[in-house]
């Protein structure tokens, strides 16, 4: 019998205590932020969309190797010795043409592992977080500033240069072999 009355009393008491809590909250200002009209200020370390400053990129491939999901694809072409690609912002001389630098931002897991190894700090995370697209292919970002013709041209130039060097080397080797053979003949005589 005592437990019966106790049950009733504790039920009513705890219900009233709960109701008091909820009632107090009616007068607390709400914490909702009405998103499209009002946007939050994000902290400066926030990890959103990646951006690459191609003027500083030396094509070292460190970021592509550090990425855990392999979303960065880099292809580089060695430059010819007489070409001047300029300097990066911290004084290094660039020696590679970067012909392909694709980041598939849909694959990216926003882990920031690519930002740390970059020697010139050219890849970093911006504060842009509203970048949805209608087509999936538009989410593959291409950062290279050369036109497609230029990229093909650089590649062809390099291959020609290599071919010339190989031909020169072959000619030089032939000439050396010939000279050696002649010398041998001289020695023999």
């Amino acid at each position, binding site marked *: 019998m005592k437990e019966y009355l106790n*049950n009733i009393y*504790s*039920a009513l008491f*705890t*219900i009233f*205590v*709960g109701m*008091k*809590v*909820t009632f107090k*909250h009616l007068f607390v200002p709400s*914490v909702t932020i009405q998103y499209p009209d009002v946007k939050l200020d*994000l*902290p400066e*370390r*926030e*990890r959103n969309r990646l951006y690459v400053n191609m003027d500083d990129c030396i094509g070292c491939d460190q970021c592509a190797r*550090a*990425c*855990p999901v392999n979303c960065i694809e880099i292809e580089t072409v060695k430059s010819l010795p007489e070409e001047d690609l300029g300097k990066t912002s911290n004084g290094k001389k660039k020696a590679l043409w970067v012909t392909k630098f694709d980041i598939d931002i849909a694959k990216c*897991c*926003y*882990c*920031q*592992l690519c930002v*740390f190894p970059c020697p010139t700090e050219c890849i970093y*995370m911006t504060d842009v977080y509203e970048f949805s697209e209608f087509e999936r292919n538009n989410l593959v970002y291409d950062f290279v500033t050369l036109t497609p013709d230029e990229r093909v041209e650089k590649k062809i130039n390099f291959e020609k240069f290599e071919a010339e060097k190989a031909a020169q080397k072959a000619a030089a080797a032939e000439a050396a072999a010939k000279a050696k053979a002649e010398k041998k003949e001289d020695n023999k005589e």
Partner: protein
Amino acid sequence: MALKTEEMILNMGPQHPSTHGVLRLELQLEGELIVNIIPHIGYLHRCFEKHAEAMTYPQVIPYTDRMDYLASMYNEFGYALAVEKLAGIEVPERVEYIRVIMGELQRIASHLVAIGTYGADIGAFTPFLFCFRDREKILSLFEMTCGARLLYNYIWIGGVSHDLHPDFLRLTKEFIDYFRPKIKELNDLLSYNKIFIERTANVGILPLDVAINYGITGPMLRASGMKWDLRKDDPYSVYDKFDYDIPVGDGRMGTVGDSWDRYFVRVLEMEESLKIIEQAIANIPEGDVTSAIPKRVKPPVGQVYSRVENPRGELGYFIMSNGTPNPLRIKVRGPSFVNLAVINELCKNLLVADVITILGSIDIVLGEVDR
């Protein structure tokens, strides 16, 4: 002639509002009472352990985040401790303190989710929103430090990725002062409510010997009466320098080891975490947090098993290395996976409506169960 009765099989399918993820529970009913429950898992399996063999050691950390996505800091913490043990890396003391602060904040956030969703399953919708409002404050603290709210990639092998923001300690102190009265409000609204007690007390009683036989760890084991916590019984990092208590279930609203105990142990643990954070903030030393991070992690040949106390139980990492920059084998002992196995024992001869109560009190995260 006796009547032939058939057992009915009911499916609480992969999509269900109360199963905390994609879990399929096959219930075999005899009338209204449950005879057998078979959980079917694997809907969230993402081959973490196999995939890690193709990554280098630092690249595995974003993947460990995604296993138990509600307590990411602890996954990274456990992994970093394991690799540091294997490779013999010593970390500066400031790093240890930062890891402890982040871990305990993460424990509070994870318990808030557990408590909120448990209330929502039972039918009380308001505490759910209150818990999430408080959790937002913790997530904005994390956002200020490392830039992400849920999957951090913050605790690295040999240190942490960024030093603390200059405002972090002050804001954390403000959070602690803000949060203490909120625990009391939560107790008023949910924990001591008679209807909630009627729904959860004496439901799903887990005796202590059954719990130990099944290998249960974490708040479930503590609610059954045993005072076992890896932070005190097998201390790692700097946990032995702090003064805190381990809450244990004492059956004050029913029997020891029922769902109310499991729920209330989590509420008490949040209070203890606040104590640890206060002490850590008061005593944190200065130092350089990135000085011990090696350029290339190449541990010597060997194997290590290292464990930490997740908000859900004992999270263990077994790592085998063969001297290359990629691990040979990583095996994870997920606490939710082991804890889920006991649901068959707990639900014998109960009504179907109680299954949801018990599942909520076990507090599983499917990412950890399936990996």
